[in-house]
């Protein structure tokens, strides 16, 4: 029996394009794949609370984050869902260390050296702490972005094509960190990508999206056409 950690059932129309997606994710990593324009990033933005669906429900660990029928829409900053964006989105005016600490400050957590050092070691960013994001390479920037998301102690981690802006060598550099993240951090992940090979390394459950609709869900237990 699969325990569903996240259920998403959302509808939204963006002019010509309409999105109506329904899927569930369990613990571990779930991949959301599909061609560009399929609505992957929009779904991530809805789960994060950055975009409001027209209708539907988003439930995480039994708590409704969005429910149009019940007029529930928990603001992004209260959802405790961290997102790792394609472009990193590090704060340019803060050092790497302050970027990493940002989520902890905003959530009012006390400093925890052990966790901080663990994440820094996991991502191998110890020697970057005093630098500014402008002085980092693309791969370093994404590693810091992953660390920043993790250190906010999220209930769920959303990765929106975190490797898409990197070349093949940089991708190969980051992928092992993502695998370690999945195995060690014990935070459920939704991983968005259009790269099948990348996805196979990360996720066990795969949700295939096409033109705003979920067309297939593949699980380790089998494959079913939606």
């Amino acid at each position: 029996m699969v325990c569903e950690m996240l259920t998403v059932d959302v509808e939204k129309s963006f002019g010509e394009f309409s999105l109506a997606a329904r899927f569930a994710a369990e613990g571990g990593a779930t991949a959301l794949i599909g061609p560009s324009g399929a609505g992957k990033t929009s779904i991530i933005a809805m789960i994060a609370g950055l975009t409001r669906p027209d209708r539907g429900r988003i439930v995480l660990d039994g708590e409704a984050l969005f429910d149009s029928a019940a007029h529930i829409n928990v603001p992004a900053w209260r959802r405790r869902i961290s997102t790792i964006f394609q472009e990193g989105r590090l704060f340019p005016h803060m050092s790497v260390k302050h970027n990493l600490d940002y989520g902890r400050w905003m959530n009012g957590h006390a400093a925890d050296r052990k966790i901080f050092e663990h994440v820094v070691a996991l991502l191998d960013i110890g020697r970057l702490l005093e630098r500014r994001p402008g002085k980092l390479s693309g791969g370093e920037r994404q590693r810091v972005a992953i660390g920043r998301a993790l250190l906010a102690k999220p209930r769920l981690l959303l990765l929106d094509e975190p490797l898409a802006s990197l070349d093949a060598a940089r991708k190969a550099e980051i992928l092992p960190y993502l695998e370690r993240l999945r195995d060690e951090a014990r935070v459920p992940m939704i991983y968005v990508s259009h790269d099948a090979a990348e996805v196979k390394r990360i996720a066990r459950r795969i949700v295939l999206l096409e033109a705003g609709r979920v067309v297939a869900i593949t699980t380790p237990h089998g494959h079913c056409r939606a």
Partner: protein
Amino acid sequence: MRLPRVDYFMLDLTPQEWTAVFLTLRIAVVATAVSLPFGIAVATLLARRSFWGKSLVEAVIYLPLVLPPVATGYLLLITLGRRAPVGAFLDQHFGIVFSFRWTGAVISCGVMAFPLMVRAIRLSIEAIDRKLEDAASTLGADQLWRFATITLPLALPGIIAGAMLAFARALGEFGATITFVSNIPGETQTISAAIYTLTQVPGGDTAALHLVLVSILISLGALIASEWLARRATARLHGV
């Protein structure tokens, strides 16, 4: 402020002229400082929100930029003057009087400088990548924290530029100030008004020239200081 007749920076000014210099600086500094929080608030509102009547609000804010300064001063006189509706109310209930006081000059300079300040700050806020604020909100920052930790620091170069423009405008303000608070030595007579007065009396040319020199020095100093500040702020932002 009474000063002996000595050469400051080798400038031969009378105590009364020095008073005008220091008064101008005081008015410009206070006008800039007081209007800055409002400037940031209004610029943020204009850059980020759309609301009913926004164009009208914008037009009113930018009006002093295009209106003859004397007209702006006159409008201030008939609203904030001692017998004017708002002015009388402030006088009776709070004992606040602006007419013929240096604080009135602060108001007129602030009003004249406000559009320039708002414009500079607004442009810098509009240039900020809002995706950074989205990222901050996914990390747990509510609207106020996002503004304080992301928007405000990233807009800092624009805020400095806006403050500098406002300060410069306040230094040179003449028409609105002289109309609203007149030209009283020691209370409302700024450098501009003093120069004007000196050119109207026989033999005042040398003294007028001295004051012109002083205003050149102040303006240059302000320009250099703001350039330096803006460079430092930009460098800080990008970690150079």
